[in-house]
């Protein structure tokens, strides 16, 4: 195991540090708050001669992802960074990157999608892109976004996968918060990620390829199925890469983190930085003998449905927390998919879906405790909880 380097930095600095260590070949990017610092820092690394990445300053995110597709297809290890409306402007290309099976790494700093126009965190950008065929991995803090980024290319470039990957962190909450972090030395990180050596690529003299061909209906559905299988294959690859990362760093990763779940009767299931807040509250409640736990989703695509159902089957009730409004009159994407997964796997526990933290609305340990209290009252006293409640909302009542 490598000796860690004790440091402190923001989430944006942490992911930039990982980019410096990985030294990708090409980075087309267009700045947008709160991810702007990432292309800034990479540009500085380039100016200082610390990396030999080719930076392409493009005129929009649509062009950034288009250039990333061209560059990756040409045979270059390619990455970009964006947030919010930037991801939205990439939409069409996100699907092309995936269907053309290009292992591009996008570091996303989650920010709400307008409107109302707002620069702060929620997950509406990446959750909106959940069905574009990208692998999605989320981080609780600067450490996790650093670690996840180092694992990104080995997952995406694996022959069984060949899919683009989105490494997400919460805008401002982690991207702009300076916190302690354990970095890894450059050499083992470089060895871990390895050189990019695609078998087939466009700029390969004597071995021409055609990429992104028109496919008639007799072929297109087969292509989509093959892409879906690649996403399924990503499951085992994500776990293999996590194991290899554990050997190097001593830090364990899986599809999700189960915190104090062994004997938990009540669970809060959520994604991202709020998980730390939930853990803190869980520790306090545990001291009072309240059997509560946290299930923090790390990998949302591919969705670990069976594993989540297995992890929750001993619980009496689970609060499923979405940091996004789906406007479906029901609940957010995590709520929909987790409840469907529980049903399919015959885990018939109480589920309550909540919406929280939209557009940077703060989420505190007090909120967590209130929710656990409500779950308990539901199970023990039959006190109903209105479905799909907002947390931290001002109301008349």
């Amino acid at each position, binding site marked *: 195991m490598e000796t860690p380097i004790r440091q402190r930095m923001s989430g944006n600095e942490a992911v930039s540090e990982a980019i410096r260590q990985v030294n990708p070949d090409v980075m087309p990017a267009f700045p947008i708050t709160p991810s702007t610092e990432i292309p800034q820092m990479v540009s500085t690394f380039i100016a200082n001669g610390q990396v030999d990445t080719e930076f392409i300053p493009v005129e929009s995110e649509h062009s950034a992802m288009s250039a990333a597709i061209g560059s990756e297809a040409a045979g270059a290890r390619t990455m970009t960074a964006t947030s919010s409306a930037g991801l939205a402007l990439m939409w069409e290309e996100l699907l092309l990157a995936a269907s053309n099976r290009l292992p591009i790494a996008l570091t996303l700093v989650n920010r709400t999608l307008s409107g109302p126009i707002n620069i702060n965190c929620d997950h509406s950008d990446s959750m909106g892109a959940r069905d574009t065929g990208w692998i999605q991995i989320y981080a609780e803090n600067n450490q996790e976004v650093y670690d996840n980024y180092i694992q990104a290319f080995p997952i995406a470039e694996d022959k069984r996968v060949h899919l683009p990957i989105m490494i997400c962190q*919460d805008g*401002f909450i982690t991207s702009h918060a300076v916190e302690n972090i354990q970095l890894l030395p450059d050499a083992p990180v470089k060895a871990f990620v390895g050189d990019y050596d695609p078998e087939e690529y466009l700029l390969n003299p004597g071995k021409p390829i055609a990429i992104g061909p028109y496919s008639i209906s007799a072929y297109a559905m087969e292509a989509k199925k093959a892409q879906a299988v690649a996403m399924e294959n990503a499951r085992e690859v994500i776990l293999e890469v996590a194991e290899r990362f554990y050997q190097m760093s001593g830090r364990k990763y899986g599809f999700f983190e189960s915190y104090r779940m062994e004997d938990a009767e009540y669970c809060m299931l959520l994604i991202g930085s709020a998980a730390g807040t939930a853990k803190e509250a869980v520790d*306090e409640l545990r001291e009072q003998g309240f059997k509560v736990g946290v299930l923090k989703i790390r990998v949302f695509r591919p969705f670990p449905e069976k594993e989540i159902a297995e992890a929750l089957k001993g619980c009496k009730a689970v609060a499923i927390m979405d940091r996004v409004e789906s406007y479906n009159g029901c609940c957010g994407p995590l709520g929909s998919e987790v409840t469907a997964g529980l049903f399919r796997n015959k885990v018939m526990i109480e589920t309550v879906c909540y919406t929280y933290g939209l557009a940077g609305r703060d989420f*505190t*340990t007090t909120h967590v405790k209130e929710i656990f209290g409500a779950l308990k009252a539901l199970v023990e006293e039959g006190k109903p909880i209105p479905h799909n409640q907002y947390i931290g909302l001002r109301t008349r009542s």
Partner: protein
Amino acid sequence: MKNTLEIRWHGRGGQGAKTAALLLADVAFTAGKNVQGFPEYGPERMGAPITAFNRISADPIRVHSNIYEPDFVAVVDETLLVSVDVTDGLSKDGAIIINTPKSAEEIKPLLRGYEGRVITIDARGISEQTLGKNFPNTPMLAAMAAVTGVMEKDDFFREMQASFAHKFAKKPQVIEGNMKALQMAYEVAESA
């Protein structure tokens, strides 16, 4: 939870309250602590009230919410006392540090009945005297270090010297003035 020191900074966009929070996180980190330093972003405008936060602890910090019941508060611009409830949730066992040439007694009536310690420091005066310019965050940082005792005095000055040597590598002539500003502010806050 209360192994963790929680600090809230109030300033105006462009005055360096966020920088002060990040600098405090930095020195506490070098002293071996677990730290958090983060701003709350509103509309990013020069002069608009902004808030920044610190958590400092011997244990790993996991909470990712703002601070509502701080142990200490720093106010980088005294004009904020009128428009912002700077003592909101502030522990009465803690303290508030305010950048003003006025005395604590003169300021207290503006603090909406706050019962804890009030420390005033003429950060602007100190800055203008030592640096020739109004950079109030440097003296405010020293005052916060002195009042919270987040680290040993010698360690604080050693780490700040190193930090300035790095930050001002291309204009070392300003290091001495910055160190002087820290010392003056530290002493004022220490004896307050």
